[in-house]
């Protein structure tokens, strides 16, 4: 009987082409079949994987030495040229064929060129200093140049020839992705024990979108791991003899954008009133089952440069109403809070608290893309009052969350916040290579935004997994990866 590990997973992969998606679930699945230049260890530290080592040659030049003896699933050896090809496919205009550019290009920011030096070194040249390059690289998987040239971008969507611990057996669209152990695996990152081929012979991602069904599948022993365990099912899973719950601090910050371009929320008193109206602890406790960390700024407590001493806007509905009155709204106000379907429940809870604080709030659910059009206008004019949303930060670096949400006219700046001082701090931090100084810049910026409150900063939920007790050697990862390399089942 072959050992087999089954994951009950929310969504199917969109594609199996590592360069042709921007989807976290797809990433999670693909990453078990493809390895990257670097990866993260259990403490989220970036460590070499396919790269043997890497060094910062100058603020804008990185050199990666490629490990020897790595083979693709089809048996061909991995070369520096494959790495160069992969990175170029990700970053060059039109490199995907058919004039298409990889949707992941923006994830690699200012990468300007990639070249192979002396056989096994790949040099990445940036157009400006960008200290977080290594933090962004774990998400970019290395493909085989020969294979891509053979099957084309089209073929890569459904076929896998990676260097990861598992080979693709069958992709049953919408149903399951079945993988088997790659016997010639080089072992993965040497700094993460154990090193060697995967523990289980087969690994399966079974797609179960309904959360209740996913839980039921775990309870009945059909699957060994499920993601997105609803908080209200934690008790049940824990009390079931064969199963347990594992959590990990997440990297996604939840917040409510207040449209500062609108008349109402341009008034700081109103924004403060809203902040006082929300009882974060209550929601974390009652709805999220205690599995979230409250935040007073945009950054997760685990993130680089997260401050611990930000002022707290205490829950105080009286004060909220008083502030509203001061701002000229003694009878409260009517507002609409936009959000997407997935957040409907919790947004309604927030709305009901706001309502008690004088903001008579109606929740309007829209599609993701529609909301994006409405709220992430990149400087274009905004309509609407409030937007309940979130921003993921897998790199746990402020660059990836603070800048897009707070820099004037940046792509995630839903509040329409504009503060030259903050812009300057963020820009400076982006290219500052000294970690301490960078951290100080971000902390300063956080103090400012905490005072000005373009957003109601809410919490960072934990990722909750349900696991079978026969599962060994696996722990959840803050970046939502489900790395099955080291996982074993009895």
């Amino acid at each position, binding site marked *: 009987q072959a050992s*087999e590990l*089954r994951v009950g997973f929310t969504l*199917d992969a*969109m*594609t199996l*082409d590592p360069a*042709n*998606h*921007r989807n976290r679930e797809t990433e999670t699945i693909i990453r078990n079949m493809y390895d990257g230049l670097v990866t993260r260890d259990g403490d989220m530290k970036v460590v070499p994987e396919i790269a043997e080592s890497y060094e910062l040659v100058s603020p804008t030049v990185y050199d990666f030495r490629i490990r020897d003896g790595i083979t693709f699933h089809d048996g061909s050896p991995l070369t520096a040229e494959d790495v160069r090809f992969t990175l170029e496919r990700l970053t060059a205009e039109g490199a995907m064929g058919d*004039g298409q*550019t990889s*949707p992941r*290009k*923006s994830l690699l920011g200012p990468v300007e060129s990639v070249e192979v030096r002396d056989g096994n070194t790949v040099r990445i040249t940036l157009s400006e200093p960008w200290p977080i390059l290594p933090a962004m690289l774990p998400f970019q998987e290395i493909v085989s140049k020969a294979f891509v040239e053979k099957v084309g971008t*089209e073929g890569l*969507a459904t076929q896998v020839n990676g260097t990861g611990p598992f080979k693709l057996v*069958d992709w*049953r*669209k*919408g*149903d*399951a992705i*079945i993988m088997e152990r790659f016997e010639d695996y080089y072992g993965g990152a040497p700094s993460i024990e154990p090193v060697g081929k995967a523990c289980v012979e087969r690994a*399966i991602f*079974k*797609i*179960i*979108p*309904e959360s*209740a*069904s996913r839980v*039921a*599948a775990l309870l*009945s022993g*059909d699957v060994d791991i499920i993601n997105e365990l609803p908080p209200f099912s934690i008790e049940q899973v824990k009390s079931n003899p064969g199963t347990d719950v594992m959590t990990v601090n997440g990297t996604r910050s939840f917040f409510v954008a207040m449209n500062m371009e609108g008349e109402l929320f341009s008034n700081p008193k109103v924004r403060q009133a809203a902040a006082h109206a929300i009882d974060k602890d209550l929601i974390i406790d009652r709805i999220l089952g205690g599995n979230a960390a409250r935040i007073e700024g945009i950054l997760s407590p685990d993130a680089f440069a997260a401050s611990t001493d930000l002022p707290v806007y205490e829950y105080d509905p009286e004060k909220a109403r008083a502030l509203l009155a001061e701002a000229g709204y003694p009878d409260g106000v009517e507002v609409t809070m936009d959000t997407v*379907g997935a957040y409907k429940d919790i947004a309604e809870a927030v709305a009901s608290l706001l309502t008690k604080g004088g903001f008579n709030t109606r929740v309007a659910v829209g*599609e*993701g*893309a*529609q909301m*994006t*059009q409405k709220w*992430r206008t990149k400087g274009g004019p905004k309509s609407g009052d409030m937007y309940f949303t979130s921003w993921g930060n897998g790199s746990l670096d402020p660059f990836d969350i603070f800048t897009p949400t707070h820099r004037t006219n940046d*792509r*995630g700046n839903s509040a329409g916040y504009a503060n030259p001082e903050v812009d300057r701090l963020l820009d400076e931090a982006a290219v500052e290579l000294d970690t301490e100084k960078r951290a100080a810049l971000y902390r300063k910026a956080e103090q400012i935004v905490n005072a000005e409150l373009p957003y109601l900063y809410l919490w960072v939920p934990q990722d909750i997994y349900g696991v079978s007790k026969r599962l060994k050697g696996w722990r959840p990862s803050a970046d939502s990866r489900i790395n099955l390399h080291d996982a074993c089942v009895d």
Partner: protein
Amino acid sequence: MSLGKLAERLLHLVPVLLGVSVIVFLMMALTPGDPVDIMIGDQNVTPQQEQAMREDLGLDLPVHRQFFVFLGNAVQGDFGTSFYHRRPVLDVIVERLPATIELSLVALIIALVTAIPLGVLAAIRRNSILDKMATVGSLLGVSLPGFWFGILLLMLFAVHLQLLPVSGRIGFDSEIEPITHFLLIDTLLRGRPDAFWDALKHILLPAITLGLPMTAILMRVTRTSMLEVMRQDYIVFAEAKGLKRGRILFRHALKNALIPTVSVAAIETGSLLGGNMIVETVFGWPGLGRLVVESVFLRNYPLVQAAVLFYAVTYVLLNFIADILYTTLNPRVKL
């Protein structure tokens, strides 16, 4: 029926299909919001790139030209690229098709094999307990909201009794190499009765949920038309001929009574297709219906558009087949 008549009937489909594609096209064309914006999402894209994408999609053409481009492409099976999967829409749809077709067929079969005998029995034993139960059952059948009923079944049989699986098409232990992609057939072809049984257990609840309203309606139609037929002069005449009851019922009455049943079955197969969306969502069935629902939320318009078109064309063809079946049952109708 001659080949010429068949061709004539097929020609009649042309304007309908044309109209269907106009509506489907308009659905997309009149949608507020720019598909290019949706494709771009929160990526960084230069205005030149945006322009290139626009030209690529033919969005710079006047609307009527766009339609002909759309139609031309659609006829060749090119429905564009799924924004989300970044693959040709047709590929994505075709992958999901076997699951949906298998589910619909099983639901259809369940409906037909339960509805017709029950309807006939209810008509023959008019006002009996069986008739009353059938009537109540059919009323319940059309009144039960499928999404809710599915959840109830799931709760009862899968979660509490743990008799049937919760989700999916087949269990982990029953994987087989696909041949036709219809698992119920493939498992048999591969000589795996255990896997067949497993696949059957998976399809049972969704197929029942999907087939229930159709069963109810077909049963009602069969019963009513059977009663109607039993009143006809030719049945009285058959009785006057001193024929055996069985012959009167099954040869004289049923053949006529099935005529409306067939046309209703065709129409209802259409709603079966629509019902897929709900049932596949509830039961995590990896078919086209669930894909469409997901795509609606992702504003993956090319896929929604192609799927709507696909459903409509399937429906038109189903009705066409039913028409032909109808003529074989009903000699009065000449195609």
